[in-house]
């Protein structure tokens, strides 16, 4: 039978590794949202002296590629240094899994993002981020690459969903090219806020839709 999933994806889907929570994790992350149909949660334990990832656990609400990527990424990261783990790409994860269906990219990229976010969370909590860069349009764009356009399953920037970005007086103004009553409007807004609101030099994020 011609399954869209590789044997390895199916294997991990049936028997995912490193599932669960870590008590008192050093870094946590949650990417995606139940509304989009996919969500990954990651917990990290980092050895303070060696900066090696001692333990890593994930949970997934999502489809087979989401579960399989969550599983493989934890296996790849476990035992490696946080700097090495940061470099793990979606492509490497996909290659390890023997490929992923193109239409499922957005489900699988979440796990990779979650790993990066969990490491960032660890670094922030431990004062490992030395310089706090000011929020520029470029920084906003970079963060928006982590917000999915649920219609296409790709990020909002690549799918031209963002029509304008402005930063004015520590306020970010973002225009979204989507009707305000579209079924995905609240989800997109929530995701954008989550990615930008916590920035150190930002007071407010305003997201506008088409009326």
């Amino acid at each position: 039978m011609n399954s869209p999933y590789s044997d390895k994806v199916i294997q991990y889907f049936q028997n995912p590794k490193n599932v669960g929570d870590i008590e008192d994790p050093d870094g946590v992350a949650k990417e995606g949202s139940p509304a989009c149909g996919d969500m990954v949660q990651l917990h990290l334990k980092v050895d303070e002296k060696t900066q090696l990832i001692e333990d890593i656990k994930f949970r997934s609400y999502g489809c087979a590629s989401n579960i399989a990527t969550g599983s493989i990424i934890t296996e790849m990261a476990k035992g490696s240094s946080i700097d090495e783990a940061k470099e793990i790409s979606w492509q490497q994860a996909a290659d390890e899994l023997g490929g992923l269906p193109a239409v499922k990219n957005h489900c699988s990229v979440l796990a990779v993002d979650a790993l990066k976010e969990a490491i960032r969370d660890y670094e922030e909590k431990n004062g490992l981020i030395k310089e706090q860069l000011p929020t520029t349009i470029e920084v906003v764009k970079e963060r928006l690459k982590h917000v999915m356009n649920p219609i296409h399953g790709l990020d909002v920037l690549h799918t031209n969903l963002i029509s304008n970005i402005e930063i004015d007086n520590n306020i970010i103004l973002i225009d979204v090219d989507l009707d305000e009553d579209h079924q995905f409007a609240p989800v997109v807004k929530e995701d954008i806020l989550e990615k930008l609101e916590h920035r150190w030099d930002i007071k407010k994020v305003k997201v506008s839709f088409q009326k």
Partner: protein
Amino acid sequence: MNKEMVYLDNSAVTRLDKNVLKAMQPYFFDTYAVATSEFAYTMGIEAKEALNKARMKIAESLGAKKEELIFTSGTTESNNLALKGIMYNQKEKGHLIVSEIENFSVLNTAQRLEKEGYDVSYIGVDGEGKIKFEELKAEIREDTVLVSIQHANQEIGTVQNIKKIAKLLKDKNILFHTDATHTFRRIPIDVSEVPVDLITISAHTIHGPRGIGALFKKDSVKIQKIMNGGFQENNLRAGVENIPAAVGFAKAVELITEEENKKLKNMRDKLIERIEAEIDDVTLNGSRKDRIPQNANITFHYVEGESITLHLDMRGFAVSTGSACFSKSLEASHVILGIGGDHVRAHGSIRFTFSRYNNDQDVEKVVTAIKEVVENLREISPLGKKGSEKNEFSLQ
């Protein structure tokens, strides 16, 4: 494919009944001519007689006359013919009303008509999927030509009170079309009692062949043809008649019994009862009372539908889901969203639809399987009691 597969996706398509195939075969190999006029050759005359006999049998099952039945290629074409056929036939571009949980062949046809300059109103539904009757009344205008509201929903199986709708529209002199694809031969409609003007039916949901359906059109109602060509089907649907399929359709109609519908209803009720009793945090989508006998649609909270269907497939069960991941469009079910459900409710919804070829053991087997599958997926999920985000996403 696994021969032991338990197929529970019968609202998508049903398995052809062997007796239907047997009835069709002579019209492929022996009487294979087109329907000719009675002045032509014998085989053509016989073919025509077979077509008319099939037409009569199907029309009778709706309480209609044989002249009122137009054969089409199925639900999609019948719905297109009803909506476009009526709207194109008006002198002025009129107003059309449809419900927002219709099949795509109604919704997308309505949207197409909108692009062509027709006004369309979309009627909302309540939490069970029943159309908001007051909203329908309020949307009716001077120039409203046609209302199209399905008899029952394809996903959640909710049956509309078409008697009430038909009466309202008759009083106001507005045409009424209903897509009865999922109720035909399951829940009776008699057009001599209920004033419906147009009805869509299809063979694929009742163990008949694919590629044939029909549109009942009251003989006083005028429509325009939407495909140009020959003069078949009373000059309303051009193209060589699909006589073997029409004969098969009539046979399929004949083979459905009241007893079979009772059996379907029992399987459905048993499935819902056991799932609700044995699995926590589930929601029945649709109406408990006004529901087609073959359909159960249930949301399993905290888990995603594509993962459920894939696990079930590996265990030999075919079901479908309203999850975005499952669909080609990556959009969540418009029906579940229409009944006021959120995306999470749509993503975790599973549709089980039964047929003649299912039995009580299938119900037992699928309940056992889905219990395990949902349990396993909830172990992984960050949501719900097992996950670390305890009940962050409230149940409806």
